[in-house]
């Protein structure tokens, strides 16, 4: 744990970070920008897991290993999403969600 910093402060920080990510996800229409907002949200969750584990039950390591798995899943998700976005760009020449209609019908 961090000397002089309570769990409330860390969790408030990660809550703010998560909702900044939600704001970006709701306002952007570019798929790459939406993916970057998603990274912000995933990072906030990983910090939350680690800090709750460190402050409430430091003897066991469950939350910290969960955050490792979260990072592995985020890497997998990003690779797959980037592949899909690149293929979509080759198909339709745009990655704006307002203009991409390939999967719509």
């Amino acid at each position, binding site marked *: *744990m*961090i*000397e*002089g*910093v*309570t*769990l*409330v*402060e*860390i*969790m408030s*920080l990660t*809550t703010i*970070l*998560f*909702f*900044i*990510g*939600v*704001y970006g996800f*709701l*306002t*952007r*229409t*570019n798929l*790459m*920008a939406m993916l*970057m*907002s998603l*990274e*912000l949200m995933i*990072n906030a969750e990983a*910090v939350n897991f*680690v800090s709750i584990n*460190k*402050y*409430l039950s430091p003897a066991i*390591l*469950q939350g910290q*290993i969960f955050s*490792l*798995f979260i*990072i*592995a*899943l985020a*890497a*997998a998700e*990003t*690779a*797959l999403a*980037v*592949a899909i*976005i*690149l*293929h979509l*760009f080759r*198909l339709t020449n745009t*990655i*704006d969600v*307002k203009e991409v209609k390939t999967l719509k019908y």
Partner: protein
Amino acid sequence: MERIIFYLLAIFIVVFALLSVTTKKLYRAAIYLLFVLLSISGIYFLLEYNFMGAVQLSVYVGGIMVILIYAIMMTDKIEGPLRTIPTTWKIVPIIVTVATAATAIYAIVTNSGIQKENVASVTTVDQVGEKLLSYDSGGFVLPFEVISVLLLAVMIGAIVIAKAKKLVDQQKNIKL
């Protein structure tokens, strides 16, 4: 001292995250996101979980950001600004996110009595490794194996998706 560093990192994280979701240029958004990820690895180091900080630096800053920047280079039109939803409609996401964040922070602050004080613990790499490969109760060997299979499947899937043809003829077939 740690408190000052934590607050510096928190200011960095919030400011650069806000810049990253509000800037009009996609490259700048990616670079601001890079600063956010670096500051988060600093928080992991402050929490004395050095392995996670190293993983954050190598996987996120070294891997995911490079993939994102290459993908932006291949897809972005450099001249135009980044499109967002219309400005008058932005009031709805602002209200929704601020209200939800305020509710969540209120819930966190009012339930803050469960914290244990002064528990110093450093997580070392061999602790993490033993936990990841142990098959006693509380061990993580099954998710570890599942995630390795998942990473293999994701690699194959990404190659298959990226190698697909342009699908123009197939679209015509679909329309028929």
